[in-house]
């Protein structure tokens, strides 16, 4: 068999052009096969590594656990490690939030709090802080120094009276955030037990379950559930660290996605490589026939074909892997850099981890996977050609018209054209070879359609428009509302109305800033009704300036603006129907309000509407400000201030808002048009970049198919073309002939792509809008993408026809006419 290999190797070197094409196809396939899983894995890996760095490591946190239960829990056989945390109090009189808590060693470990210097607090008056904390609190000190501050101890009733405390710094912990807005300080157990009555002390129990590495997240959650049920712990008390779990345990949904993508690549690869080989077969028939006549067996012939392919693969696969390796880092950084405006700790950490090489970028398993799958692809592509080589009969070697026996297209006669010209001849060729033509055009067309659809969606998803619909005005300052936040019970709406940071003073403060045109308040109230299954929804009172948009958005039913001022009628956002399909126009809902008044009001559902996110972010039930005031008139029910400025970005205002945020910390949320815009832009950049890149490569593979078909056509018809040239076809006519064919393919593919893509584009746009993808609102025909597609395809075809014409003309006429070997 060594001879066979030698022959195969020599063949590979001899038939350069075809094998170069094949090599490129294999290279691209391998590249994609390597890059896609690697990037996917690396992105996920990076994210997980970052999560591991930054997030706390406990799997589950159970609140309000007493000592006894804690001990029992710790003893449970499914619990691997556990820690305790107890919130003791808050520092008082500061601009920043500083909490005091006790955590045992395990707890600190599970929270990823690392001691930089010193030791954990043991004695009653020892405390561990961070340097940044001291800075923010305006204190100085080193280990062993005493610091003094006032604090409020925490008990069941809430924050107690201010006390003065003296503590000795026993250690410093590493502050992970760059600019933290809240700090923690750690006290000893003794302190906690001393200052909080024993029966009131409540711990938080943190634990990790003992599960193996390759268990799914669902499994872990099941284990947790088992434990909590055993101990009769209420679900409300349990918080599962989803992100962390997802980071460390297998998420069952990602694998199939990657597998599907790889399958697509493999199929594209097979089609291309197969058709490239198929071309070459026809002209090698005589060669194989002669081999057979000399005495090669079928098996040897098959092996010759296979090994020739493998020889090419042996060069192309490593090349592809090498290219992929070189590209991985660059591509990853590219993905991350699109989050450039986001200085969040997550992105920074991720980048750092990658730079430090902490995250394994190159996975040996993927190298092997890509190489193996590539080889398998090559094998599958070659199966049919192998069979063809073996089927060759010895007689074909002698026959001048080798290969015709396989192509016996016993076609019946057809009507002749009275007169012929170049156009008709090319038409005859195209219709004669229907299968090939259709396959090529359809495959190109499908890629084109997909391209157009993606282009439509992406061009509709204009980040400017998305940002516009996501936020009204240029800046938004809103209250942070959350109801079951045991850590911050003051975030419940009824508390906020009593103590609303967004008051008149704030408004004036904002309006006083340079560049601020206008500050509009959005009023809000929370309520629930039977039909809402106990969920709390927001009822917003929108400012009058939004009247037109409010009225325009109505899709069903009717209501006048005046009616919305009465407080008895309300417009419900259509999205509500998804969750509560029972709501109908005319329904009179009894809403129990959560503004602290315990009132129940009746509102009538007057209409359904469709609105941009920026409008209904506060509440899905909408009425006017006046109407809301009629319903709920307790305290200050301003949920948010929407700020309109002269320019999209006002540095003065931003400074002011930053100051405000400093003061109020987590109580207020800030959104800006700019940040939304950047968010959309980066999200889209990545998605669109990735989609375009992926389709570019896939498209490349499909275009290679077209290239191959055209080369195929020319090859098979070399003799005929030679004959026609002998009869007297000029070079120009030959170029015309080739051009016409190319134009036909391109035209067919373009028509398919543009028509199909445009037709499909609109429904897909509608679907995307329904599902709120990218906050798409307006339909926008992707002119530029279409133009690019057309120009690109035309350019390729012209280039191809010219190149093919050149190569045909180069060969001497007589060689072809003589049909010599």
């Amino acid at each position, binding site marked *: 068999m060594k001879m066979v290999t030698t022959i195969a190797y020599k063949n590979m070197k001899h038939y350069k052009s075809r094998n170069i094409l094949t090599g490129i196809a294999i290279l691209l396939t391998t590249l994609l096969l390597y890059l896609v899983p690697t990037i996917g894995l690396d992105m996920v890996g990076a994210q997980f590594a970052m999560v591991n760095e930054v997030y706390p490591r406990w799997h589950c946190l159970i609140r309000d656990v007493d000592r006894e239960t804690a001990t029992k829990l710790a003893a449970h056989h499914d619990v691997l490690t556990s820690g305790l945390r107890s919130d003791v109090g808050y520092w008082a009189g500061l601009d920043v939030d500083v909490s005091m808590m006790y955590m045992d060693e395990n707890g600190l470990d599970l929270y990823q709090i690392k001691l930089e210097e010193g030791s954990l607090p043991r004695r009653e008056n020892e405390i561990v802080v961070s340097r940044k904390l001291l800075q923010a609190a305006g204190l100085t000190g080193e280990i062993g120094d005493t610091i003094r501050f006032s604090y409020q101890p925490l008990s069941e009733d809430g924050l107690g009276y201010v006390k003065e405390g003296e503590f000795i710094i026993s250690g410093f912990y590493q502050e992970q955030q760059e600019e933290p807005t809240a700090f923690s300080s750690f006290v000893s157990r003794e302190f906690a037990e001393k200052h909080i009555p024993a029966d009131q002390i409540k711990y938080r129990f943190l634990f990790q379950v003992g599960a193996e590495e390759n268990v799914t997240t669902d499994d872990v959650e099941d284990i947790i559930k088992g434990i909590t049920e055993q101990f009769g712990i209420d679900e409300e008390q349990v918080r599962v660290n989803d992100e962390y779990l997802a980071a460390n345990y297998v998420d069952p949904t990602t694998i199939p996605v990657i597998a599907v993508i790889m399958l697509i690549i493999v199929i594209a690869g097979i089609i291309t490589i197969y058709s490239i080989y198929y071309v070459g077969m026809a002209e090698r028939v005589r060669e194989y026939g002669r081999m057979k006549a000399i005495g090669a067996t079928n098996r040897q012939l098959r092996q010759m074909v296979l090994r020739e392919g493998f020889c090419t693969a042996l060069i192309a696969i490593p090349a592809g892997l090498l290219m992929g390796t070189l590209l991985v880092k660059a591509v990853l950084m590219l993905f991350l850099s699109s989050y450039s405006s986001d200085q969040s700790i997550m992105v920074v950490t991720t980048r750092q981890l990658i730079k430090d090489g902490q995250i394994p970028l190159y996975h040996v398993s993927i190298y092997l996977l890509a190489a193996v799958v590539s080889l398998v692809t090559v094998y599958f592509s070659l199966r049919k050609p192998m069979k063809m080589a073996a089927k060759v009969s010895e007689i074909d070697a002698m026959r001048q018209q080798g290969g015709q026996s396989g192509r016996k297209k016993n076609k019946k006669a057809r009507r002749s054209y009275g007169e012929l010209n170049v156009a008709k001849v090319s038409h005859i060729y195209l219709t004669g070879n229907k299968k090939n033509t259709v396959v090529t055009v359809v495959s190109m067309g499908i890629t084109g359609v997909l391209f157009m659809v993606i282009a439509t969606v992406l061009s509709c998803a204009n980040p400017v428009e998305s940002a*516009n619909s996501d936020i009204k005005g240029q800046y938004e300052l809103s209250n942070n509302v959350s109801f079951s936040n045991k850590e911050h019970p003051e975030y419940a709406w009824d508390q906020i109305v009593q103590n609303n940071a967004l008051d008149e003073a704030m408004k004036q403060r904002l309006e006083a800033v340079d560049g601020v*045109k*206008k500050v509009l308040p959005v009023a809000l109230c929370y309520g629930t009704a039977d039909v809402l299954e106990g969920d709390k929804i927001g009822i917003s009172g929108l400012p009058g*300036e*939004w009247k*037109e*948009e409010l009225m325009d958005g109505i899709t069903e039913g009717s209501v006048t603006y005046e009616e919305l001022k009465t407080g008895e009628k309300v417009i419900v956002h259509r999205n509500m129907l998804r969750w509560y399909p029972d709501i109908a126009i005319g329904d009179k809902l009894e809403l129990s309000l959560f503004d602290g008044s315990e009132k129940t009001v009746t509102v009538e559902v007057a209409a359904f509407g469709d609105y941009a996110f920026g409008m209904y972010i506060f509440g899905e039930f909408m009425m006017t400000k006046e109407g809301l005031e009629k319903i709920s008139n307790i305290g200050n029910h301003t949920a948010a201030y929407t700020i*309109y400025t002269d320019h999209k970005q006002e540095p003065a205002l931003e400074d002011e808002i930053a100051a405000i945020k400093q003061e109020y910390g987590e109580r207020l949320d800030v959104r800006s048009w700019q940040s939304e815009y950047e968010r959309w832009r980066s999200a889209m950049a990545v998605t669109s970049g990735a989609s375009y890149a992926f389709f570019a490569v896939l498209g490349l593979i499909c275009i290679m198919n077209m290239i191959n078909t055209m080369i195929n056509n020319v090859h098979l018809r070399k003799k005929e073309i030679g004959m026609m040239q002998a009869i007297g076809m000029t070079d120009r006519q030959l170029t015309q002939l080739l051009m016409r064919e190319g134009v036909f393919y391109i035209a067919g593919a373009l028509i398919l792509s543009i028509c199909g893509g445009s037709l499909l584009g609109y429904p897909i746009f509608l679907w995307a809008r329904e599902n709120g993808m990218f906050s798409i609102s307006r339909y926008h025909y992707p*002119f530029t993408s279409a133009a690019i597609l057309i120009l690109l395809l035309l350019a390729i075809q012209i280039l191809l026809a010219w190149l093919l014409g050149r190569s045909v003309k180069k060969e001497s006429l007589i060689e072809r006419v003589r049909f010599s070997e």
Partner: protein
Amino acid sequence: MDRKRDGKTLVGGIVQKKMYFYVMAGLILWGLFVCLGAAFLTEREGALRWQQTEELSVIYPQLKEPLHANSAYYEAGSRKGIRMAALCLYFGGIAAAGVGYGVLLHERKRKEEETRQFLNELAEQSDQLLRGGDLPGRIDGEEAFADEWKAYLGKFRQTCHYFADLRQRLGREENDTKSLITDISHQLKTPLASLRLSHELLVAGDLTQAEYQEFLEKEGQEITAFENLMQELVNLSRLENNMIQIKPENTKLKQVLTEAVNKVFFKANEKQIAILLTDEGHTDRQGADREQGGAFDAAIFCDPAWTAEAFANVLENAVKYSGENTTITITVGRLINYVYVDIEDEGIGIQPQELNAIYKRFYRGERAQKMAKDGVGVGLYLARKVLEEQGGNIVARRRRRGSCFRITLPCGH
């Protein structure tokens, strides 16, 4: 002739059609692009403006009215843009049409001039030819002529060639006739000389009764041979002078062959030569169009008498140049358009270098001369002429022993 008028309109007509087509197509395309571009641009522009006015009017409702008026202005502006584009298209079209027409007129004038020149040249050249000069040479710049003109030129040249050929042929025929007369007179000399000798001997007397008888017999033979020769020569000269009409008609191969065989049967018998007939029927290998019956019954399209004569000549040669007790095999077969007759003998055969020469008039091969003294050498010449005249053929195929002549005749209708 209407040539002149045709020349103008024909040439002009073609130029006209093409140019108009291109101009119109170009205009339409251009206009489309302009409109599309304008629409596209104004759509974008309008959309952006509209968006801005929307935002502004939300913030400043009091500005809504003037803003809307503004955007109406923009809308009007975009409509204006389209109107501009349409105007450009219209005027551009007129301008282009004007230019095109101007070019057209110019072209036409040029073509007329060219046509006139061309025809003048042609007239001159034919004059030259008629005066007995050379064949017309190339005309300057003839590559630049329109294809149509080149075709006319080609036909003209063909005519000239035909005349030249005719002249040559006339010359040749004169020569041929001269050589024919020479050949015939030469051929006649020999037997005539022999007769004269015989006669003189007889007159001189002094012969025995037996010798006298012998000479008389010899004379008789010579006269018969002479007569035969005369007949052949008469046939030949008639044929040469096209005095004989070969009138092909639908007839049967059987009939013609039988007649031919009858003519030589006697001589063949004398030498104990057997004549066999084989019928291969229809021999189309693909098996299509199989007809019933063998080739012997086939209908052929030829002059029965002359064709029989041709066959007879070949058969005579076969007999003449074969030894005693040999066989002559006649094989007949059908082709698609033709019928073939193979006449194979076991005689002296033909040497390869003589294969072409045997059909020449009065040619006799070396071996042939040795084998049989009498013979003029016109048999095959005659046969070939007769057959080719009717669309048939005769070829000699060498055999290891003897010769084989294959005669093809067109099938009857």
